[in-house]
């Protein structure tokens, strides 16, 4: 189908000032991504999956300015023993980063892939993103593959002793950043990746994850409360037999966040959990768009999303479980819930199930409600001031999502961060 004129001109206007980086062996993948993008066009608010989130500011050529934000707090994961990889406004910073050597993992910068004649990631770059374009277009991910200026490739071959922390800092008020990471977890290997920081005024992040048979990858992300930043994350994961992929994202504030997560279970007995907790106050729009495809037997998937919204904040959840023919004994679960602290906030939801196998267990649910007045009264009758009682109930509400983080210390870190941010909300 030919692109309509509006989309075509919006897409070309966006691309006019952009230059595909000179990139050696990823250049073919980039040109293909560019062709994909041109055939589908950048998102428009009439598009089925963009009805709840206006893509205008993500599509327009110049990024809206975003004031720098410094709350003086220690960054998330700061107390963890981890391997730091720091990007400042989308540029790898070797000074701030640790040495990239760690037993059990091979980390390279994307430009190393581009410069070398033979690199393992060459076969992966753009591949999962391209596969993830069916059946739903993900034009911003294609845009990323074509234009990403930096990123890392992470090949997990063993069990690295500490997590790998991708840290994105933001120093320019009008930065427009594309980062693209490729992760391959080899058979039986296991690693944890942490991500945090605003990265830019407008950030487009893409991570392609390939987990081989028996491999495990945990991803924990904290999207901080920089009020003016805009971020789109595109996570594509392909899971082999008996592999495990668990991803949790905490989002607090930010004028626009769209987290897309596309997971395909291709090997039998694989497990995928995708969870998120979002707290939005005021000018906040946060969107989780998740698509999980079961294409093997006895796989398990969970989607657990909780959003606490106040003062006109908007939360979006579009989650799908697709069970392909033959994916028998699938165990799929999806829950999305919002707690609306006032009458101005909105939760827009589209849960979807599409099942082509006859022996599966899939459940989904979505609720939206105010704070439980009976519980609030009970706590206050025991002497808890209203704000403390509200916080306690807020933390309790998001607990089911936070519980999805397997590692105790990381779960505590996220809970601590939540508590800090709740304190901050009270001024």
């Amino acid at each position, binding site marked *: 189908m030919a692109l309509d004129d509006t989309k075509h001109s919006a897409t070309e206007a966006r691309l006019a000032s952009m230059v595909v980086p000179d990139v050696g062996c990823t250049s073919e993948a980039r040109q293909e991504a560019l062709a994909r993008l041109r055939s589908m066009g950048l998102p428009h608010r009439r598009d089925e999956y963009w009805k709840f989130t206006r893509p205008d500011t993500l599509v327009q050529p110049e990024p809206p300015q975003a004031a720098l934000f410094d709350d003086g707090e220690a960054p998330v994961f700061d107390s963890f023993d981890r391997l730091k990889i720091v990007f400042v406004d989308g540029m790898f910073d070797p000074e701030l980063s640790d040495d990239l050597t760690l037993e059990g993992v091979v980390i390279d910068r994307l430009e190393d892939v581009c410069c070398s004649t033979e690199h393992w990631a060459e076969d992966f770059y753009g591949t999962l993103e391209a596969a993830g374009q069916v059946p739903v277009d993900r034009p911003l991910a294609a845009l990323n593959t074509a234009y990403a200026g930096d990123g890392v490739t992470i090949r997990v071959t063993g069990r690295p002793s500490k997590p790998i922390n991708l840290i994105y800092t933001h120093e320019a008020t009008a930065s427009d950043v594309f980062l693209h990471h490729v992760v391959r977890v080899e058979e039986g290997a296991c690693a944890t990746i942490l991500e945090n920081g605003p990265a830019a005024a407008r950030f487009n992040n893409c991570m392609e994850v390939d987990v081989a048979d028996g491999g495990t990858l945990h991803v924990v992300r904290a999207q901080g409360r920089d009020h003016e930043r805009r971020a789109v994350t595109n996570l594509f994961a392909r899971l082999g037999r008996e592999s495990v992929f668990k991803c949790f994202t905490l989002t607090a504030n930010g004028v626009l966040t769209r987290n897309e997560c596309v997971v395909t279970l291709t090997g039998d007995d694989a497990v995928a959990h995708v969870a998120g907790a979002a707290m939005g106050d005021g000018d906040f729009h946060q969107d989780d768009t998740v698509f999980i495809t079961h294409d093997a037997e006895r796989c398990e998937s969970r989607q657990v999303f909780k959003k606490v919204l106040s003062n006109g904040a908007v939360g979006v959840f579009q989650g799908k479980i697709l069970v392909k023919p033959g994916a028998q004994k699938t165990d799929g679960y999806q829950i999305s819930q919002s707690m609306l602290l006032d009458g101005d906030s909105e939760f827009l939801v589209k849960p979807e199930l599409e099942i082509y196998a006859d022996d599966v267990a899939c459940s989904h649910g979505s609720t939206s409600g105010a704070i*439980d*007045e*009976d*519980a609030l*009264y*009970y*706590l*206050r*009758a*025991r*002497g*808890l*001031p*209203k704000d*403390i*009682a509200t916080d*306690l*109930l807020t*933390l*309790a*509400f998001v*607990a*089911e999502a936070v519980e999805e983080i397997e590692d105790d210390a990381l779960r505590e870190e996220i809970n601590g961060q939540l508590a800090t941010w709740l304190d901050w909300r009270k001024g």
Partner: protein
Amino acid sequence: MLEIKNLHVDLEDEEKSILKGVDLTVEAGKVHAIMGPNGSGKSTLSYVLSGRDGYEVTQGSATLDGVDLLALEPEERAAEGLFLAFQYPVEIPGVGNMTFLRTAVNAQRKARGQDEMSAADFLKEVREKAKTLKIDADMLKRPVNVGFSGGEKKRNEILQMAMLAPKMCILDETDSGLDVDAMKLVAEGVNALRDEGRGFLVITHYQRLLDHIRPDVVHIMSEGRIIKSGGPELALEVEKNGYENLKAEVA
């Protein structure tokens, strides 16, 4: 200690009058019981005193040691030493019982200008008190009241009461849903807290709880008023003759 004068209360949404002039004084060290048929306003009285939303006081006053309770937020009333043991304790998924108790104890201490209790002291005290109420470690760890049996919920209320050490305790149908053994356990918990400086208001349908928690004064409530007060023998009279006789007698 607790002084209620000519208290009139309407339901906020329905303009329905529930309490129509309640007068009641509970002295320190005394146990008062309120009995009455369904719908007489007993539970409403407990909710209004503890500060639940949805009620409008149209006349009268309620003070605790001279402090106007009706002007305070629920948490301020608690900090003044008022405690309501709920008829239906609320389940709060996601909040650990222990966390809840400790937050409550420390919030009240803070409101009174006292130092917070250390984690170690708190733990020691909770364990001691939980033991006498046969509350095990598992119940302390679980989310507040979630999956608790009726008896466990009521024992949990008494544990909170013991930890918070209020000066005025209101027990709203604490016997409902309890078997005889559970009732004894709860009554023992309450009796252990009886003290010269502490007042109790025990709301119940039945006389049997009062066999275990011996009241000093019994009040009969009907249609939003206290229609008769007397000694413990009044409860026995109700048990024998029912409320209808009494209402007829007073009318």
